[in-house]
């Protein structure tokens, strides 16, 4: 008992001490409402967890001074104009040294332009549009793999398995279309089967399921998020379709399992930026902490965002001052080992984190199939 | 050549024949009354002549020129003006603005006409603020601003109180005396129309039943039968 009391007192004390410390406001652009609000929540979860950890550890020092981190989050609602406004406000009103986040590629493009205006580094943690990092914007960085990178890993894997022609059920938005176009480029037009697009908010895939059954596809790729994903798999399996399923990073988690059941998922593979149960020290600690804070299994978007904030802090430390250009230089030269793997930006500001392919086992666990060097059996993915 | 002629007009709405072979011609200006029981096809005839409705068959001629199927605005340009059974004015426009909208006559004429019907004090008021009867007067006065050659009035006296009633009668007569044109007036109020018209046309079941001087029409057994039957 006394030790608990002591610990509580220490915590209170450290909190009081922390309060007195200087704070660095870090800008966050995300979707708290609008069509991307659901994944936006995972993004914020990742940022909040990183913020909590950094501050609990006493903050970080820049140029000899200790700071705590504070998130200044704005809702951009998947709308480019709102994104530009939020960025402008962060740059000129809140005067933050670095901004992170965003989910939507089109909005990210508007934000990136403002970031360049103010020489304010913008670190994307979710948008996947490949052309974002092709604009010659030196202040734009992307932690997560873009669509081309994701599909490259997966296309290689699918080609090796001989799962072509490959059919699709895909969101008719930047993520879904980007995925289909990337696969088309990598596998070749002849290897692409039926492509069924649906709009965000649509939930009935029966027309697509029927067409896939009537076609000759060896596998079906589901390019969408968790919520429609669970419905799509249910509808595919309930219709008696036994085709190999290929999913996205939203579909390789225990939370996803809760939406469905092991029988329907068995055998499905998905690419993943982050296998929450991999036997890697950093992943294990992150997953445990995440589960403790949010009561559910960690999400890839959260992991990417968590790493993003940690990385930004490391860059500020390395830069030695809270100034955009210095932080940009630091980011460009930084090598950071995060939850999602090693993050090192190329000349275009794109990181190349590992992309995993995991597969559902009969007991509701996952095995890692790809990359070869991390291959592990059920329970690891 | 007739000023206005319709030949064999037919128009069906669903199963109902609103016009069934209607022939009618007006050779010269005058005030003509158009009467008939409900459903006789009077308003449909107006709608066809003013281009709101296209007939299924038959022709409409003005000065011998075939104008069948012309849209309303073209017929208006050709000198056809009308008022509506349900009384239409632009409620947000002032009385004066209502009269000047697309007018051929100048503002002085508008003010004179308003004076004739005792509406000059409302010239600057929005039409919506008028009583129904006053709005009816405004609507009818407005039709003259286009300087029409053919004027169709659909139940001008309906819903107008007796005081305005007389104003209206006097106004129509004055206007006719000033410039004789073809007035075709649908009216249920016999007193009103008999006093005004020089000739009465009776319609029944989509066609012309009788035509003649007011007293002759009133005495016709066929007309009586149509109204009672």
């Amino acid at each position, binding site marked *: 008992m006394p030790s608990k009391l002591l610990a509580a007192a220490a915590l209170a004390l450290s909190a009081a001490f922390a309060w007195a410390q200087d704070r660095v406001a870090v800008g966050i652009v995300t979707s708290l409402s609008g069509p991307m609000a659901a994944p936006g929540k995972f993004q914020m979860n990742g940022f909040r967890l990183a913020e909590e950890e950094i501050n609990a550890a006493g903050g970080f020092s820049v140029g000899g001074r200790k700071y705590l981190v504070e998130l200044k989050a704005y809702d951009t609602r998947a709308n480019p104009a709102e994104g530009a406004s939020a960025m402008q406000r962060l740059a000129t009103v809140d005067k933050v040294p670095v901004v992170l986040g965003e989910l939507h590629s089109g909005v990210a493009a508007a934000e990136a332009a403002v970031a360049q205006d103010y020489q304010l580094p913008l670190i994307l943690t979710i948008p996947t549009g490949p052309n974002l990092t092709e604009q010659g914007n030196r202040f734009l960085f992307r932690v997560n793999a873009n669509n081309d990178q994701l599909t490259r890993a997966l296309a290689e894997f699918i080609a090796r398995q001989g799962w072509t022609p490959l059919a699709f059920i895909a969101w*008719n938005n930047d993520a879904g*279309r980007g995925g289909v176009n990337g696969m088309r480029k990598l596998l070749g037009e002849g290897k692409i089967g039926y492509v069924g697009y649906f709009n965000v908010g649509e939930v009935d895939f*029966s027309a*697509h399921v029927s067409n896939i059954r009537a076609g000759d596809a060896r596998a079906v790729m589901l390019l969408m998020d968790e919520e429609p994903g669970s419905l799509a798999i249910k*509808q595919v399996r309930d219709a008696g379709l036994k085709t190999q399923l290929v999913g996205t990073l939203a579909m390789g988690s225990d939370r996803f399992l809760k939406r469905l059941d092991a029988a329907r998922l068995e055998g499905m593979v998905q690419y993943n930026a982050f296998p929450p149960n991999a036997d890697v020290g950093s992943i294990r600690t992150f997953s445990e902490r995440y589960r403790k804070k949010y009561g559910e299994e960690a999400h890839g978007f959260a992991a990417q965002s968590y790493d993003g904030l940690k990385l930004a802090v490391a860059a500020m430390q390395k830069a030695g001052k809270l100034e955009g250009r210095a932080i940009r230089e630091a980011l460009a030269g930084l090598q950071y080992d995060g939850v999602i793997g090693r993050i090192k930006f190329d000349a275009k500001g794109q990181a190349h984190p590992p992309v995993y392919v995991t597969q559902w086992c009969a007991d509701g666990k996952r095995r890692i199939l790809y990359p070869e060097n991390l291959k592990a059996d059920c329970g690891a993915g | 050549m007739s000023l206005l002629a319709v030949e064999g007009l037919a128009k069906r709405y669903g199963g109902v024949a609103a016009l069934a072979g209607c022939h009618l011609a007006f050779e010269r200006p005058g005030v003509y009354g158009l009467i008939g029981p409900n459903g006789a096809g009077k308003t449909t005839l107006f709608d066809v002549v003013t281009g709101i409705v296209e007939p299924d068959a038959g022709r409409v001629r003005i000065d011998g020129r075939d104008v069948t199927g012309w849209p309303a605005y073209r017929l208006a340009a050709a000198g056809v003006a009308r008022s509506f059974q349900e009384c239409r004015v632009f409620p947000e426009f002032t009385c004066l603005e209502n009269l000047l909208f697309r007018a051929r006559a100048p503002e002085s004429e508008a003010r004179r006409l308003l004076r004739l019907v005792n509406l000059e004090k409302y010239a600057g008021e929005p039409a919506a603020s008028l009583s129904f009867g006053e709005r009816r007067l405004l609507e009818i006065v407005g039709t003259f601003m286009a300087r029409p050659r053919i004027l169709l009035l659909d139940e001008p006296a309906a819903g107008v109180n007796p005081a305005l009633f007389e104003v209206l009668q006097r106004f129509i007569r004055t206007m006719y005396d000033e410039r004789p044109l073809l007035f075709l007036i649908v009216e249920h109020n016999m007193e009103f129309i008999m006093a005004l018209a020089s000739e009465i046309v009776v319609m029944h079941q989509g066609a012309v039943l009788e035509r003649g001087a007011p007293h002759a029409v009133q005495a016709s057994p066929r007309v009586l039968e149509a109204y009672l039957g």
Partner: protein
Amino acid sequence: MLTAVLEQTLNGLMAGSIYVLVALGMVLIYGVMHVLNFAHGVLLMVGAYLCHFFFTRLTGSYLAALLLSIAALALIGIALERAVFRPLQGNLRSQVIASLGLILAIEHLVIALWGPNALQMRVPATEALVPIGALRFPLQHVLIIGVTLAIIAGLFAFLKYTKLGTAIRATSEDRQAAMVVGIPVERVDWMTFGLGTALAALGGALIGPLFLVFPQMGDAPMVKGLAGILLGGMGSVPGAVVGGFIIGITEALSTLVLPTDYRDSVAFAVMVLILLAWPRGLFGVRVRGED
């Protein structure tokens, strides 16, 4: 090919059922009050949320939750009729604009209360699979088509044989005449509104377990339902049924031959083309307030 067409037709019937459920409520209200309530889709969504709430928090019975949400939505509908739509009677533009305001307010209120993430409503009783020929369909699918057909039949019977139904038909046909023969049209108004929103709740409660319960779930059914009633002829109940099914089946069949990312466009293009040929819709009734 033939089986594919048959199968897609069946899929279209399923999707169309949902459009019809939305369209029926809208068309009843339109017929009586000449109000086109664009917020009907979000009311369907509210119905699903309430059903979810009652099901998970209050009673474990799906049927009870469904009935409760229907009752709640009927009350909400009656309140909206009183507060918003009755005062705007006769003003088409304002009604539509007010209903756009309701969409914004209600949808974001739901997000504020329940969050943006989809809720799952698992009703074990409806999770069985039904074999039809060589194909299998979830029971809930069949249930939706069945319930929709039952509602259509019930609604027709209701309109034909009950006193209120007759009053609704009379008021739709000619409001003035209905008033003259002593039908209390204002009472018919709010009752119809309640009935219409109750139908939306039923739709939401039915599709909730099959799909998910989320804030935008009513958007697509509303837009497609609108297209359906336009196609069928504004104000015509049989028209709404036929129109809704045509949209659903067209969408499903179009996936056989056309790129699927233009599926919506195909449905709308069909609507516009049919309207150009039959400007008042397939079951075109006279359009009131045309000018």
